């Protein structure tokens, strides 16, 4: 079974439909599937519900899909970096569901793991808890959160082998591993595809079973949001 596709457009061919739910990996602009997002924009698919921790910036990442108004609803934990988002949201052109970051991460893991609901202390007594089932365990109150799945998950890894086994690099891992498990179809883009056996089997972050399609991204801009450095002291 060949999982490797020529490019992002080919890898996504036949997977789109208007109104679908898509998960996209990344934290800020770190570890986002840039090439797949580009192809998603080019496809013109509309009315998307996008589950992603953030919404990119105005002209990069998921911000591209906001500019084209392909997104109907975002499920995120923080969207502060994106002015297009703010404008569309304040004009009621965009729905928004905030999730605490850890709750979002765990909901996605649960979705991929066949767990339809779990209890957490996060958000008890806040707006997040409204309308959710409350239950006491050992005298403490928890709220129930549900598992999340998607029609399509787009993830970015560092390297893949031809089986679709993935490894991520540093903090570019973030939401990608869980999202890979929670998509009905998962498409991965990587910086390098290596032969079978070239990755250490003890260090594979996402086993190939979770990856249906795979590309080597054409270009990686890997834009940095907050380039913060220190000066070298004179010797």
């Amino acid at each position, binding site marked *: 079974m060949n999982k490797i596709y020529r490019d992002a457009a080919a890898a996504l061919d036949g997977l789109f439909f208007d109104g679908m739910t898509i998960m996209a990996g990344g*934290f*800020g*602009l*770190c*570890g986002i599937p840039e090439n797949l997002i580009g192809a998603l924009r080019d496809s013109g698919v509309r009315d998307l519900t996008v589950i992603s*921790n953030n919404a990119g910036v105005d002209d990069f990442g998921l911000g591209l899909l906001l500019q084209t108004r392909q997104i109907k609803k975002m499920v*995120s*934990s*923080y*969207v*502060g*970096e994106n002015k297009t988002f*703010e404008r569309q*949201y*304040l004009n009621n052109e965009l729905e928004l569901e*905030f999730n*605490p*970051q*850890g*709750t*979002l*991460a*765990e909901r*996605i*893991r649960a979705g991929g793991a066949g767990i339809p609901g779990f209890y*957490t*202390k*996060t*958000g*008890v*007594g*806040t*707006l*997040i808890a409204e309308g959710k089932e409350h239950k006491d365990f050992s005298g403490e109150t928890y709220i129930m959160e549900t598992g999340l799945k998607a029609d399509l998950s787009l993830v970015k890894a*560092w390297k893949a082998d031809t089986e679709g086994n993935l490894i*991520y*690099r*540093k*903090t*570019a*891992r*973030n*939401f*990608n*591993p*869980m999202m890979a498990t929670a998509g009905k179809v998962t498409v991965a883009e990587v910086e390098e595809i290596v032969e079978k056996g070239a990755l250490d089997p003890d260090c594979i*972050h996402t086993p190939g079973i979770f990856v249906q399609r795979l590309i080597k991204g054409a270009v990686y801009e*890997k*834009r*940095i*949001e*907050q*380039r*913060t*450095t*220190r*000066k*070298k002291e004179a010797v």
Partner: protein
Amino acid sequence: MPWTRDDMAERAAKELKDGFYVNLGIGIPTLVANYIPDGIDVTLQSENGMLGMGPFPYEDEVDADLINAGKQTITELNRTSYFSSADSFAMIRGGHIDLSILGAMEVAENGDLANWMIPGKMVKGMGGAMDLVAGVKRVVVIMDHTNKAGESKFKQACTLPLTGTDVVDMLITDLGVFERNGSGAFMLTELAPDVTVDEVKAKTEAAIEVGNHLS
């Protein structure tokens, strides 16, 4: 003379103990890393998936794949490990982080915290704040005691939407330090230089106790 941002960060750093695993919020809490006492070895967690966060990189070390929860470029140490967001928040929610130091908009006398949302303004999101206050063993808040209009941010009850209820264990403001045992009342335990108990009381809406050594 009220404390500066750096004074507050330095005071918060005294809460660090050797061997602690610590999560520092964005803003003033980030400065705490500059004041870690000698002989105290702490490991910083970044909730986007890293334990053992190092300082900002030199120009030639900048790596787009290596950022902290504030999306700033950072470096790794020889103790560093990386993990997914789910594993990161399992670590947080499971009570494995010893201390979290966070900023706030309001703190209430019952330990409630508000730091993510001002109704009517654009809401950016809570990020990991709700998970941190619900999961970390001890939560220390650093904030200015009053807002620009001079009104107390340390309140009887929060007026802004909450981040968590009964979660603050210690509050450090520019006027002093307020400590809390379990779910009890906050007690003023330290004053910034030349700040008086009366001044603190005048600027505090919350009902507080005052340490014997100060009254």
